[in-house]
């Protein structure tokens, strides 16, 4: 199957206003079968809004979203047949047991037997508590049940909104393993949003970074790791702000909003020259650091670069 070419999720030029505020601005991204896509952004950046648009909870007003080729607005039912997800905290009927909740959703698809319910229950490790009322579940257990309901219909696209909320480290590891297996063995596309970056580091094949409703970039995990290989590492110099005016002209681009901080990329070989030039022109240096390229670094550099008032 030539799945790699056909995206499971196509988001094209989505913008969204809520309560008169622009929440999302011209978002475009694709997610392919078998990949885990991390959707990163700080709180309030528009992750949940994007997911709600994908699941038809909010109206798509400009742009389009297609799931396995089916438009979420025009062909809602077909699109929803391929998707499973959780949005924010997975809230279920507290007066029903875990199993009864799963049965509710199973009935809405048709063709999902008790076998599948056992299967997903086992997959998320909830077998021994499945007949308890939800009211007795911890947040972590509800997250697990949330994942179970999202998997009921064997979705081609699994959408998880901050699924690690309330999970303990062991739970996070379980989740990671489950998602890897789904993606790499069953070719499920996983779209996972988070503001906790370290967790995604180990799961994602590709990431998209969103801030203030703008998708800053999408990168493969290799691109993240090798972010410096072309232009060199990212260095940050802490200086005495009163001496900042002495900055040599070729380093003007290193200025940031913070007058005591200079950042920029340069080749490793040129770092000693750079330090010498700064000293020579009378800039007082407190520290120089060279960054390692993790998701977190990329994320921070991008979000500060695109912060309001910064260059865009």
């Amino acid at each position: 199957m030539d799945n790699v070419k056909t995206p499971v999720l196509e988001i094209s030029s989505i913008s969204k206003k809520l309560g008169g505020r622009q929440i999302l601005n011209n978002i475009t991204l694709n997610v392919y079968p078998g990949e885990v896509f991390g959707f990163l952004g700080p709180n309030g950046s528009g992750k949940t809004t994007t997911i709600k648009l994908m699941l038809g909870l909010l109206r798509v007003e400009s742009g389009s979203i297609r799931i396995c080729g089916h438009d979420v607005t025009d062909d809602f039912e077909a699109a929803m047949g391929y998707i499973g997800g959780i949005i924010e905290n997975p809230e279920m009927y507290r007066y029903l047991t875990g199993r009864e909740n799963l049965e509710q959703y199973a009935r809405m698809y048709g063709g999902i037997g008790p076998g599948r319910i056992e299967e997903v229950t086992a997959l998320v490790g909830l077998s021994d508590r499945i007949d308890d009322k939800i009211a007795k579940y911890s947040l972590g257990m509800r997250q697990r049940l949330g994942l179970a309901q999202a998997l009921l219909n064997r979705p081609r696209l699994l959408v998880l909104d901050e699924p690690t909320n309330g999970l303990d480290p062991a739970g996070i590891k379980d989740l990671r393993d489950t998602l890897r297996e789904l993606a790499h063995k069953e070719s499920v596309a996983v779209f996972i949003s988070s503001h906790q970056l370290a967790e995604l580091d180990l799961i994602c094949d590709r990431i998209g970074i969103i801030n203030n409703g703008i998708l800053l970039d999408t990168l493969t995990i290799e691109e993240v790791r090798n972010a410096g290989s072309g232009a060199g590492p990212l260095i940050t110099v802490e200086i005495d702000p009163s001496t900042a005016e002495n900055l040599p002209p070729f380093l003007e681009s290193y200025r940031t909003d913070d007058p005591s901080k200079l950042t920029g990329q340069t080749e490793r070989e040129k770092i000693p020259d750079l330090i010498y030039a700064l000293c020579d022109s009378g800039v007082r240096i407190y520290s120089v650091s060279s960054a390692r390229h993790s998701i977190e670094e990329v994320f921070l550099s991008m979000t500060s670069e695109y912060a309001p008032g910064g260059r865009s």
Partner: protein
Amino acid sequence: MMKTAAGKGIRPLIANELIKITKQISVRIFLIIFAALLIIVPLATRGLDLIINRISFTEDYDSYLELISLYEENGDFSGAAFYKGRYESYAYFRDLGLGNSSVEASVYLDSLRELYSARDAVEYIQAGRCTYGKLRENDWGQIRIINECYAEAYGLPAAVTDPEGDGNEGTGVPDVPDDKYGEAANADISDYITPEVLVRIYTDISAKIAGIENKVRNFDIRVFYSDRVADEEDNYASEKIQLQSIEEALKISPKDKDLLYTRELLKRSLEQKDSVIFALTHLRDSGSEFGGWEYKTALAVCAASKQAASCVPVDSETFETDPNLSQSFKDYKTYTKALAESEKQAVAARDTGLYSLRRGVVSRDTVDDSSRAAFQSHLAIAVSLSALIVTVIAGTSVASEHGSGTIRLLLIRPRKRTCILASKVLAILIVWGAMLALAFAVTFVMDALLHGFGDLFRSDLYYAFGRPFGVVFILSDIAMLFIDFLSLLPAVSLAFMLSVAVRKTPLAIALPLILNYFMSAMQMICFIAYSEGIKFIAYTPLPYSDLSVFTGTPLDRFIQGGGTGVSGITAGTLAKEILGGTVAGTDFSLLTGVLWMTAITSAFVLLSFVIFKKQQVKS
């Protein structure tokens, strides 16, 4: 187009909704309370009924003895004689083994009581405990009888006020002749009352008592009815003669207004006599039970016929000059219209009554201690209780999904929102239907146990499209159930709509309940407004919050007494009494109500769907 997955009817969704409704603890509690009330209400009303019966139908005769000595001590011998008369008359029927509601007691109790009381008063005078003058000062009703006897014996001038000797104008069943001597009965004859005169009066009263007691002993219900028939036939003959003489007189003065008017009255009266005589003959020939449904219906037919006969308008000149008429009616046209309306109602009532007698279809509230009436009223209570619970369910339905956040996981399935909402509507209807079926079964069993099968299976009398008809019991009950259901639908659908639109459970429940309460008050207000001339109100939805009110027949307002059964004391029946018969011939109609309630419900439901389809889940 490829459609995902199999088995995608609405049924699984309805199953989901049913599970959600029935597994909620609060709903379960409500349902248990509902089931309990289905058993408690018939039991409680039956108990209440028995208590009421005991209070109102067991007279503590001995307490009269205390009253009598109390009045004697106070020197009020008229009062003492009054209670003595009561005591003796009750005791008389009691000793004969006839209850107070027996036909004999109904016919003769009052006159016997008066005579006993008068005789007791005479005894007091003879015993020297009191004088005629003293008695007269503080008269409790004995003077009239004493004076009458005196007049008969010694020839006081007679002022005849009631030539027929029939003080009862309405029903065609005369009671005992009263006041034959008019003013003489009130005359002060203190000067003539000597011991000899008292003896004479005493003897006369005793003879009268003996006469009545004789009638009581020889009472025959068929003779009683035959007398009524004979009275009406005599009446018919004499009115015919009267009409002839008026025709003669009109030959001489053809323009005499009074003659023309009287001729019209007589003509109409003669026209209506057929119905009156038929109703009374029916009683006579069937030997119907006194006070039973046929008796009540026949009396209602007589009353309606007489009203129909009396609806003859005076001419416009007389109208202008009669202060009473011109004060109560805006103009001559209003007056004639009102009379025509009244006639129409009376004719409709008469025909309904005749139908009822001919076909043996019982009119509501004419059977005492009716199992059927008990069943119907208990069922009506159960239906409104069920609506209360269903309003809660409908108000919770969508709002609670928003409140708990479950709406998100509900709407992301490959299902149309319309379909999801429809499953909620249908689930609510199924739960309601099940509650109604349970109510029907339990109420039926309870009332059969408490009241016996009795008339439980009889047909009901209806009036629609200008004519009366009977409906077989089960169909009639289903129809009434549907009408009650329809009356309650707007509130439930409003709760549902608010649940969708406002997404706040308390508001979605409270507002319809408050509105319901307000609307039932509105119904009464509308009736009053209508009678004050605001006729268009009958075309608005405002008076139609309780449609069962409009199922009464025109006969209802002519039926006297009504049932003394358990079912009596609800606001619904009160309104029925006020409005019941008036519906025929007014602008109010069941059909208008049904159309309005259907329209309002449809509007609320439609609105729910439109809103739900467009709604974004922002929270």
